[in-house]
Structures are given as structure tokens and as C-alpha cells.
């Protein structure tokens, strides 16, 4: 692309671009506010923690928003994919522990362990997504009530199966050696795995954006979000695209689950539902169907949760719901939702 066409394009879309930039500045800028009452060192620690938490929520929310945006399906089974991902990762870490790749492992082994766990979660989550879409969700297109009931039911069953396969109790997750502990940079304590979480979150965001913006598949999905009928009459089987997106969303949720379990160093069967609440808040804040919106929303929720939990712990979850309410009052379609 020549510079000329680039500037021409920019000018034509100047209005919308400015609006988007304003949304970014407002939603990022507001998070410097807590500096007024939190000292900078603590603020830095909380910010890293908040960013890491935001990235992890984003992993789950990105799939949820894509599924809603393209398929108009409210998928409440997303938490089940998340918790299954967490348990698959947990089991694999247990197995890798036996061969010495977890505790007392070197950097290369630690990284491989985490990558293997993420891969396993990705595969299991993706397969579960395909099965669920083909068996149940497909029957409920067009009816939100049916979708809520059937995905809720599927979620309950999946979590009960999980309790049978593993156990209904809390389990401790062992963190690979290289990611244990923290760095101390000028009194700012940075837990190592939080950095990993941020890196993985950014990589996933980059990956999704690359696929959505630069590939034919991305064009088809974005077009499908806007008008399914046109996509279909141009020669694409939208049903297959649906299954693919549902599969990808489920896989992302499972990856989110694995990351979350290592992040929290423990797992329990109800963690899926707990995380689904965050993911739903994030999807609504960001605007249903918008991946960038979800990313912004996730960062907001992650940061707000940490700042508020430090200042007034009991208010932490409530603060997020308040943010959601305020944003919906100003922009009923969410930060980046369709108008």
C-alpha cells in the first residue's frame, strides 16, 4: 500500500477512528486514577497483577464474544470448557512431574511443560466444542432461551462428569520451577507467571487479530457477524464456519482454564462458573461480538478487581458490575459494540 492511499483511507474514516481512539484513551486513562491514593510501588504490583488477570479473562471472553457475535448463541457452557481445560492441564502437569519436568525443571523443560498443557487443553476444549455444537447448540439457533437452558444443562453435566473423573475437592497445582517465585525490580514484586500470563494473552490477541484481519477465514467470519445470508449466497457453508468458531471459542476457554489454574496454583470444579461471570461482564463491557472490545473490557475488569480488592476487598466483584452498569449507561452497545 502506498502512503498516499493510506492517508486517503485515514481521512475518509477520520470520524470513526477518532471515536475509537477516544474510547481507548478514556478506558486506559481512567486506570491511572488510583495513583491518587495508592503509593506507586503498590500500584505497579497491582497493575501487573491486574493486567495478568485481565489477559486470562480475555482468553475466555474472546471465544464467548466470537460465538455470540457470529452465531448469536449465548453459550453458558463456556465455563465448563474452562474448567475442563484446567483439569486436563492439571493432570498433564501431574504426569510431567513424574518425569521431572515440573518441579526442579530447567527453563526449557518448564516452558515445554506449560506449552504441552496448553496444547492438550486446546485439543480437548476444541473437541468438546465440536461435539456440543453438533449435538445440542445446532438445534437451538435463533432461540436465546433454548440456548441458555441447553448450554446451562450441558455445563452442569460436564462439571458433574468432571467431578467423577477427578474429584469434587480442591487440588493444588504445581507450577513449573522456572515460573515459580518472583522478580524484584526496584521494590516492585512481579510474580513470574503473571508475566507469562500477559505474554500468552497478548499472543492470543495478536493471533486472533491476525486471523480476523488478514485471512480469508477472518473476512468470512466478520462478514458472517454482519450478514449471514449474504455470506451463504456467496458460496460459503455458514454452518461449518459456525462449528469452527464454536470449536475455536471452546479451545480458547480451555486454554484460559489451564492458564488460570497455574496462575492461581489451585483448581476446583466450580471455577468455571466463577470465571464465566467475569467473562460475561467483559463481553458485555466490550460489546457483544467485538474481540478488541473484549480485550479492553478484560483489562478494565482485571485492573479494577485488583485496585478495589486492595483498597476495599469486599467490593471487588461489585465494582466490576458497577463498571459494567456505567459503561452500558453511556454506551448501551458496549465499548466497541455495533451501534
Amino acid at each position, binding site marked *: 500500500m502506498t502512503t498516499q492511499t493510506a492517508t486517503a483511507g485515514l481521512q475518509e474514516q477520520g470520524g470513526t477512528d477518532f471515536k475509537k481512539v477516544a474510547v481507548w484513551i478514556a478506558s486506559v486513562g481512567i486506570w491511572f486514577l488510583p495513583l491518587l491514593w495508592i503509593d506507586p510501588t503498590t500500584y505497579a504490583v497491582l497493575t501487573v497483577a491486574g493486567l495478568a488477570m485481565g489477559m486470562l479473562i480475555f482468553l475466555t471472553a474472546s471465544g464467548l464474544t466470537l460465538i455470540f457475535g457470529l452465531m448469536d448463541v449465548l453459550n453458558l457452557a463456556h465455563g465448563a470448557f474452562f474448567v475442563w481445560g484446567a483439569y486436563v492441564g492439571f493432570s498433564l502437569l501431574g504426569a510431567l512431574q513424574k518425569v521431572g519436568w515440573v518441579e526442579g525443571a530447567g527453563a526449557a523443560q518448564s516452558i515445554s511443560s506449560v506449552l504441552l498443557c496448553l496444547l492438550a487443553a486446546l485439543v480437548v476444549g476444541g473437541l468438546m466444542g465440536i461435539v456440543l455444537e453438533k449435538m445440542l447448540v445446532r438445534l437451538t439457533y435463533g432461540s436465546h432461551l433454548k440456548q441458555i437452558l441447553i448450554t446451562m444443562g450441558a455445563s452442569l453435566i460436564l462439571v458433574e462428569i468432571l467431578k467423577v473423573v477427578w474429584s469434587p475437592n480442591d487440588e493444588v497445582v504445581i507450577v513449573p520451577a522456572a515460573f515459580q517465585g518472583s522478580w524484584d525490580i526496584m521494590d516492585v514484586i512481579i510474580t513470574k507467571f503473571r508475566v507469562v500470563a500477559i505474554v500468552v494473552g497478548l499472543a492470543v490477541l495478536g493471533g486472533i487479530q491476525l486471523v480476523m484481519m488478514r485471512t*480469508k477465514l477472518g473476512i468470512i467470519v466478520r462478514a458472517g457477524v454482519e450478514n449471514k445470508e449474504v455470506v*451463504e449466497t456467496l458460496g460459503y457453508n455458514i454452518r461449518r464456519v459456525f462449528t469452527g468458531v464454536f470449536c475455536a471459542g471452546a479451545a480458547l476457554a480451555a486454554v484460559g482454564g489451564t492458564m488460570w489454574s497455574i496462575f492461581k496454583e489451585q483448581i476446583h470444579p466450580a471455577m468455571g462458573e466463577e470465571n464465566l461471570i467475569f467473562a460475561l461482564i467483559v463481553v458485555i463491557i466490550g460489546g457483544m461480538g467485538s474481540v478488541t472490545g473484549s480485550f479492553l473490557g478484560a483489562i478494565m475488569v482485571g485492573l479494577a478487581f485488583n485496585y478495589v480488592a486492595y483498597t476495599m476487598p469486599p467490593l471487588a466483584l461489585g465494582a466490576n458490575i458497577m463498571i459494567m452498569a456505567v459503561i452500558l449507561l453511556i454506551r448501551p452497545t458496549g465499548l466497541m459494540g455495533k451501534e
Partner: protein
Amino acid sequence: MAEPILSLTKVHTYIEQHHILQGVDLSFMPGRATVLLGRNGAGKSTTLRTVMGLTPASSGDIVLKGRAVQAMKPYEVAKQGVGFVPEDQAVLYTLSVEENFRLAMLNENETTWARMETIFQLFPDMKKFWRSKAGVLSGGQKQMLAIARAFVNDHDLLLIDEPSKGLAPIVVDHLIESINHIKNHTTVILVEQNFYMASHIGVDYFILDDGRTVHQGLMADLVHDEGLKQKYLGIA
């Protein structure tokens, strides 16, 4: 006599409980631009949508190039070589003009990109707004994008639903010119209320009324048949 490229025999279509097409019989000859005429609600658009499989026929036969297509899904019909330009300029607003075209290209190869050159000559605005979002285009440009998009594949058949709707007369003239160019390459079936446009593009015509085929013939004859126009089209 040559085989029709598309024929519909006793086609019935319901939309919910409404019986829209009540036995439509049509046949379209390759290379001859044909216009479907008729009053509002006569079933013209539904006929095109039924061919595409968007509102599937409940009975009757639809044969496209010797193959039964009435049970096919829309994407399968499209892959049989049918381009469809729906009513109301169904361009994808959030996609750029370029992405609208890339989406339409069933094969993104050199032949297809070579066709883009022809399209740019036919619709210079498409080149001008190549990287802009389709949402910023004017009504006429959107319609041109929708038609050009359907023309990007080497389809044998192009179904165009009311392209003149809501457009200024000067834009309609430009559209007529473009579609007349396109009809040299592919068989065009046009649904049109605007008789001026219909008569400048169509070679053959069919008139539908209450979901049935009631008349057919050469457009050149219909232009002078005041009685027929008065009876079915409400044109004095």
C-alpha cells in the same frame, strides 16, 4: 431449441404459513437477459430467493444447467455458478470494498484478479474506494459494489433483485449501462419494478401475478402492449 440454463416447473414456496409462490413456471435461455415483472407482492423476489435456496420450494422442480437444485442449500447453489445480488444493496458495511470482493471470490487466482481489471473499468468507483469501508459508499455505489461483487466469479447466471430501488435516475442510467455490459458475459435474470430499467435491459420477460406466471414474451413487444402493461403492471 437450446436447453434452458434455468427452469422452474410448478414451484410452490411458503414463507411461514403464507403461500407465496403458487405454481411458478419459468424457463431462462442462456445468454438472454430476462426480466421478471409484476406488482408488489407478486412473488418476484421470492422466486429468486427460492432459486438460491434461501426460501426453499415446498414442491416443484428447479433445474439449473440440467441439475436439480431445489433441495440445495444456498451455498451449494452459489457453487453451481450462480451469482446473487439481493434486494437492498446487501454489501457488508464493516468490511472494506476490497474485502467485499475477496469474500466474493470463490477462487482467489490470477484469472479472478484479471476480471477485477474489467470490473474497475466498468465501475471506476470501486478502485477509488478500494480500501474504504463499504459503509461509507453512497447508495448507488453500494448497489454497484453488490453487482460487481457477484460478477467477480465466472458465473453463468446472475440473479439481480431490484437494483434500481431508491436510486436517483442518473445512477439508474449508469446501472443500466453496466448491467448491459455484464449481460454480454453472463445470463442475467433481473427482478425490476422500474419499467424504464427493465425495458432497457431485458430481452425476454415474464409477468408474475399472485405467485403464478401469467404472461411471457419478448420485451420489444411488451413495450408497445399498453393493455398488458395496464393490467399487470399498473402502468398507463
